[in-house]
C-alpha cells in the first residue's frame, strides 16, 4: 500500500530503463519506505510518515539527477574496466592455452606464415611489374601505341612496327581519344672518351615528354621546342651517367660531349627514376631532341587516353587517321594500330601471372589447413568450453575468448608471413635471370603488406567464428555424453574430409604444372638445336663510317683480320654471317614460288627469314646440307639460295625443292632466286618450334660495316683479348669488337623458363607439405576418434594388416579423390600455360601421372604415423577406458 503511494508520489515512469537508472529509483524507493516505516513505528500516521520521509530526504528531483549522473559515470567506468580486464584475461588465457598446445599453435602459425609469405613475395613482384608497371601520372590511362602487320606474319614472333613520323604527326594533331601522344626514339650511340668510345643508349624525346612523365630536370633545364626547330645540338644526361662519368658535377650544364661524330652541349640532367615505359629495357644514358619533321623515322609512341576513352575506340580512331595520312601521300601501308598496356609488353608477364595463380593456390591450401586445424581443436576443446559454459560463462564471453585466441595466432602468422615474404623476395631477386634486371629494384610494397596483414586478421576472425560456432552446442549435450569421447556430427567429418580433398586437388594441379615446367626446362636443355653451340663464339665488328665507306676498304680490313685471326691459338674455323645467334633478319614482302599462286591473299606483307652467309658458315656451325649442294655460284646474276628443311619438306616431296624458283615480292616486284640446296633446320635463336616457314640462306656479297664472324675453336677460350689486340693493330680507330659465347647465349635463353620453373617447384613443394600436414591432421584425429573401435576390432581378432589397411585406405582414398579432381581441373587449367611450355603438350601423360603418383605417395607418407598409432592401440586399455 505504502509502496504504491510512493510510486504515485514520485510519478516514477513505468518504462524500460537502463539497469543503473532502475537501481537508483529502487534505492530511493526503499529508503523512503524504510524511513516511513521507522516513523510509523514511532507512532506517526501513515500519510504523515510518508510526507516526513520525503521531507527528510531533501530536494528530491535535484538529488535524483545527481545520483543518476554518478551512477551513469560509475556504470561506464565499470564497463570499461571490465572490458579491459576481460581483454587482458582473454589474452593471457589465449597465451596460456597456446603454450599448452605448442605443437598445434606452431603448425598453425607456420602454415599461415607460409601462405602469407609466399603470397606477399610473389604479389610484390606482380604489384611492381604489372600493377605499377609505370610510374607516370595517371598510369592507368597510359598505353603504348604501335603498329603491326595486318597479315602474313608467319614468323612465330609478335612483330611490332614503330609508326612513321607523318602518321605520328597526324595522330598528334587529330586525336580525340588521347590527351597526349608522346613519340620517342631510342638509338645506340658512341660517346667519345679518352679511352675506347663508350656505347650509350640515347633516347630522342620532345620537351613535353617531361611533363607527360611527371618528371623534371634535376640540374639545368629541358631543351625547348624552338631548340628542336633550329636543330640545336643539345643533350641532357641521365642521372646515372652524370654520377658515374662526370662525378655529379653541379656545373655540368654548358659542357660539351661528342656522340658519334657530333658535338652536343649539355643543358641539364634528368633523374634516374625517369624510365621508358617498357620494363626490361636498358636504362637511358643520354636524352636528345627528337625532330618529327624527319619523315624517314619510325618512332615509339606512348599516350595517355582521355578519361573514359577505351582502347578499341582509340585503336579505331588512330587507324582512321593513319588511313587519311596515307591517302594524302598515296602510300598504302599494310599495318594496323596496336594499343597495349605497358605491363603487357613485359615478356615475363605470362610467367608472372601463372606464378601468381600458383601462389594463390598455395594460399588456399594454407587456409584450408588452418581451417581444419581450428576445427580439430574446437572439437577437442568442446568439453572444456561446455564446462565453462555450465559454470556460467556467457556465449558472448566464450566467443570473444576464442576470437582472441585465433586473432593472436593470425597476427603471429601474419608477422611470420611478412618476414618469410621478405626473405622470399630476397631469394627471388637473388635467383633472377640476368635478362631481368628490373627484378632487382622490387621491394615489399605497402599494399601487399596491408593485404597480407588483412588476410591474417580476416582468417583469424573467420576461423575464430568457425570455432565459436562449433562451441555453440548446448553444454548439457556435451557433458551428458559423459567421459566417452563426445559424439561428432557426420557433417563435421564430411567438412573436414572435403577440406583435405580440396587441398589435395589444388596440390595435384600444382604438381602437374610444376612437372610440365620441369619437363620444359629439361627439353630446352636437351633440345637438338641443329647446330653445335659448344666451342662456338662470335665476334661482332662495327667499322667506323669514315675510313670504311667503300666496299674495297672494308674487304681489305676483313681479309687481314681473318688471315691473322686464323693463326690465333685454338681458332679453327671462321665464317661470316648477317645473323649472329639470337637474332633474325627478315626480307619484307610476299613469299612467292614460281608457278604457284601466292599463299597469302591480297596485299598482305610477310616476313621471310633471311641470312646472308659466306661459304664457311654451314660447316662452321655444323649445319649439314641434306639435299642438293652449297652455292655453286655466289654472283648476283646466279641468285642462288638455300632453304631450310622444315619448309622444303613440308612443301615438296624429298628432292622436289631443288631447282625451284622463289622470291620475296614487295609491291609485286623482286628477283627470282633458285633453290640449289636444303640445309638442316638450325635453331640459332634458342630452342623453339621447328618452323615450316621458309628460311633463306643467300650468299654474303658486299661485306657490311657491321658484320658477325662465327668462330669455331677446339677448346673453351677467352677470345676478347686477342681480338682486341688484333683489331687495334690493324686499325686503332675501330672499336673493340664484342666477343660472345654461343653456349652462354643458349644458357641465357633457358634462364627465364628455369627461373619460373624453380619458383613454381618451390610453391608446389610448399603446397605439398601443407597438404600432407592437413591429411596427417585429419588421419591422426580420425585414429584418435576410433581408438575404442580399433581396440574392439583387435580384441575380436583383426590382424595388424587389417587395421593398417583400414587407416591407409581412408587416407589414400581422400588423396585419390583429391588427385582425381585436381587432374580434372588441370586438364582445363594447363592450357593456360601452354605458351610457357616447350616440347611438352599441356595435356601430358607423364605430368598427369606424376601428379597422381606424387599425391598418393604423399598421402601414404602422411598416414605412416597415424597408422602406427592405430597399430599401437592396446585393446584392453582402449575398451576399459571410460
Amino acid at each position: 500500500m505504502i509502496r504504491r503511494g510512493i510510486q504515485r508520489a514520485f510519478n516514477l515512469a513505468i518504462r524500460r530503463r537502463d539497469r543503473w537508472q532502475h537501481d537508483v529509483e529502487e534505492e530511493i524507493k526503499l529508503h523512503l519506505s524504510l524511513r516511513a516505516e521507522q516513523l510509523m513505528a514511532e507512532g506517526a500516521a501513515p500519510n504523515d510518515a510518508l510526507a516526513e520521509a520525503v521531507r527528510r530526504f531533501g530536494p528530491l528531483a535535484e538529488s535524483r539527477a545527481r545520483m543518476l549522473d554518478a551512477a551513469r559515470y560509475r556504470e561506464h567506468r565499470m564497463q570499461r574496466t571490465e572490458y579491459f580486464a576481460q581483454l587482458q584475461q582473454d589474452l593471457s588465457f589465449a597465451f596460456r592455452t597456446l603454450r599448452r598446445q605448442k605443437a598445434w599453435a606452431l603448425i598453425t602459425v607456420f602454415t599461415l606464415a607460409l601462405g602469407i609469405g609466399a603470397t606477399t613475395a610473389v604479389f610484390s613482384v606482380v604489384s611492381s611489374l604489372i600493377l605499377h608497371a609505370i610510374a607516370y601520372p595517371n598510369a592507368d590511362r597510359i598505353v603504348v601505341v604501335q603498329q603491326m602487320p595486318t597479315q602474313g606474319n608467319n614468323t612465330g614472333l609478335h612483330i611490332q612496327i614503330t609508326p612513321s613520323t607523318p602518321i605520328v604527326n597526324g595522330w598528334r594533331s587529330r586525336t580525340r581519344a588521347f590527351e597526349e601522344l608522346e613519340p620517342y626514339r631510342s638509338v645506340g650511340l658512341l660517346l667519345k672518351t679518352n679511352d675506347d668510345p663508350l656505347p650509350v643508349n640515347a633516347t630522342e624525346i620532345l620537351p613535353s615528354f617531361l611533363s607527360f612523365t611527371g618528371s623534371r630536370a634535376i640540374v639545368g633545364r629541358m631543351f625547348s621546342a624552338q631548340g628542336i626547330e633550329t636543330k640545336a645540338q643539345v643533350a641532357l644526361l641521365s642521372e646515372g651517367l652524370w654520377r658515374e662519368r662526370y662525378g655529379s658535377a653541379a656545373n655540368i650544364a654548358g659542357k660539351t660531349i661528342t656522340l658519334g661524330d657530333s658535338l652536343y652541349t649539355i643543358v641539364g640532367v634528368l633523374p634516374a627514376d625517369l624510365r621508358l615505359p617498357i620494363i626490361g629495357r636498358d636504362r637511358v644514358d643520354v636524352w636528345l631532341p627528337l625532330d618529327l619533321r624527319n619523315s624517314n623515322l619510325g618512332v615509339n609512341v606512348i599516350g595517355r587516353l582521355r578519361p573514359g576513352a577505351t582502347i578499341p575506340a582509340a585503336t579505331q580512331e588512330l587507324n582512321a587517321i593513319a588511313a587519311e595520312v596515307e591517302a594524302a601521300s598515296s602510300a598504302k601501308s599494310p599495318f594496323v594500330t596496336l594499343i597495349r598496356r605497358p605491363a603487357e609488353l613485359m615478356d615475363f608477364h605470362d610467367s608472372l601471372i601463372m606464378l601468381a595463380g600458383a601462389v594463390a593456390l598455395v594460399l588456399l591450401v594454407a587456409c584450408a589447413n588452418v581451417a581444419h586445424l581450428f576445427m580439430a581443436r574446437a572439437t577437442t576443446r568442446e568439453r572444456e568450453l561446455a564446462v565453462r559454459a555450465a559454470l556460467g560463462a556467457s556465449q558472448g564471453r566464450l566467443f570473444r575468448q576464442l576470437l582472441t585466441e585465433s586473432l593472436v595466432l593470425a597476427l603471429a602468422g601474419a608477422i611470420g608471413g611478412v618476414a618469410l615474404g621478405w626473405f622470399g623476395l630476397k631469394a627471388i631477386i637473388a635467383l633472377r635471370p640476368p635478362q631481368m634486371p628490373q627484378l632487382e629494384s622490387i621491394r615489399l610494397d605497402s599494399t601487399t603488406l596491408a593485404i597480407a596483414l588483412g588476410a591474417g586478421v580476416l582468417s583469424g576472425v573467420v576461423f575464430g567464428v568457425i570455432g565459436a560456432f562449433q562451441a555453440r552446442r548446448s553444454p548439457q549435450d556435451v557433458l551428458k555424453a559423459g567421459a566417452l569421447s563426445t559424439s561428432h556430427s557426420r557433417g563435421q567429418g564430411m567438412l573436414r574430409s572435403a577440406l583435405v580433398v580440396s587441398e589435395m586437388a589444388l596440390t595435384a594441379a600444382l604438381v602437374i604444372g610444376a612437372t610440365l615446367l620441369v619437363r620444359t626446362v629439361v627439353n630446352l636443355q636437351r633440345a637438338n638445336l641443329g647446330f653445335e653451340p659448344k666451342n662456338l663464339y662470335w665476334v661482332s665488328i662495327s667499322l667506323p663510317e669514315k675510313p670504311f665507306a667503300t666496299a674495297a676498304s672494308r674487304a681489305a680490313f676483313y681479309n687481314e683480320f681473318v688471315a691473322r685471326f686464323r693463326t690465333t691459338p685454338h681458332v679453327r674455323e671462321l665464317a661470316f654471317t648477317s645473323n649472329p645467334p639470337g637474332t633474325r633478319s627478315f626480307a619484307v614482302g610476299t613469299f612467292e614460288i614460281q608457278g604457284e599462286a601466292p599463299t597469302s591473299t591480297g596485299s598482305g606483307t610477310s616476313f621471310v627469314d633471311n641470312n646472308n652467309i659466306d661459304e664457311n658458315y654451314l660447316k662452321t656451325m655444323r649445319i649439314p646440307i641434306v639435299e642438293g649442294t652449297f652455292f655453286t655460284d655466289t654472283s648476283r646474276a646466279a641468285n642462288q639460295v638455300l632453304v631450310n628443311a622444315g619448309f622444303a619438306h613440308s612443301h615438296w616431296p624429298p628432292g622436289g625443292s631443288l631447282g625451284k624458283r622463289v622470291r620475296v615480292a614487295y609491291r609485286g616486284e623482286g628477283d627470282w632466286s633458285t633453290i640449289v640446296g636444303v640445309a638442316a633446320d638450325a635453331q640459332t635463336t634458342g630452342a623453339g618450334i621447328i618452323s615450316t616457314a621458309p628460311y633463306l640462306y643467300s650468299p654474303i656479297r658486299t661485306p657490311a660495316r657491321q658484320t658477325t664472324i662465327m668462330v669455331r675453336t677446339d677448346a673453351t677460350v677467352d677470345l676478347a683479348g686477342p681480338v682486341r689486340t688484333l683489331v687495334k693493330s690493324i686499325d686503332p680507330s675501330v672499336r673493340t669488337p664484342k666477343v660472345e659465347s654461343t653456349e652462354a647465349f643458349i644458357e641465357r635463353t633457358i634462364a627465364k623458363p628455369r627461373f619460373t620453373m624453380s619458383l613454381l617447384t618451390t610453391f608446389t613443394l610448399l603446397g605439398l607439405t601443407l597438404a600432407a600436414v592437413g591429411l596427417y591432421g585429419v588421419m591422426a584425429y580420425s585414429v584418435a576418434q576410433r581408438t575404442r573401435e580399433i581396440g574392439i576390432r583387435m580384441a575380436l581378432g583383426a590382424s595388424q594388416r587389417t587395421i593398417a589397411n583400414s587407416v591407409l585406405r581412408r587416407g589414400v582414398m581422400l588423396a585419390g579423390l583429391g588427385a582425381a579432381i585436381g587432374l580434372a581441373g588441370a586438364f582445363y587449367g594447363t592450357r593456360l600455360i601452354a605458351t610457357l611450355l616447350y616440347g611438352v603438350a599441356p595435356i601430358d601423360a607423364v605430368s598427369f601421372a606424376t601428379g597422381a603418383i606424387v599425391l598418393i605417395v604423399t598421402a601414404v607418407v602422411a598416414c605412416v604415423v597415424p597408422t602406427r598409432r592405430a597399430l599401437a592401440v592396446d585393446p584392453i586399455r582402449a575398451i576399459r577406458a571410460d
Partner: protein
Amino acid sequence: MAANRLPVLKGTLDLLVLRALSWTPMHGFEIVSWLERAASSALDLDDSALYQAVYRLEARGLLEADWGVTENNRRARYYKLTTAGRTYLRTETKNWMQYAETVTTILTAAKDGLPSTSPAT
C-alpha cells in the same frame, strides 16, 4: 530543534560514511540510521546528501556495492569498503584528527600563543 543541530563540514561526510561501513556492509538506510544513532541526531543532514556521498565514493572506487536482501526480505543495495576505501579511511582519519587537534589548540590558545591548559600567570 534545527538550530541545535550541527551542519556537516565539507568533506567530512565521506569520512563518516566510510567509518560507518568499516565494520560491516550496510545499505543506504542503515548508514543513515547508524549516523543518526552515532551522532545522537546532532548532525544536520538531508538523507539525499548521504546518498550522494555514497555514490561519489563508489565512483571513486572507495566503495563497492552489490544487491542483497534485508532482514525483512527486501532487495537493497549493500555497500562495503574496498581496500582503497579502507586505506583512504585510515589516512584521512589521521589527517582529520591532526587537523581537529590543531584547530582546537589554536582556538583555545591564550593570547601569547600558549595553550590555555598551561597555567596562567
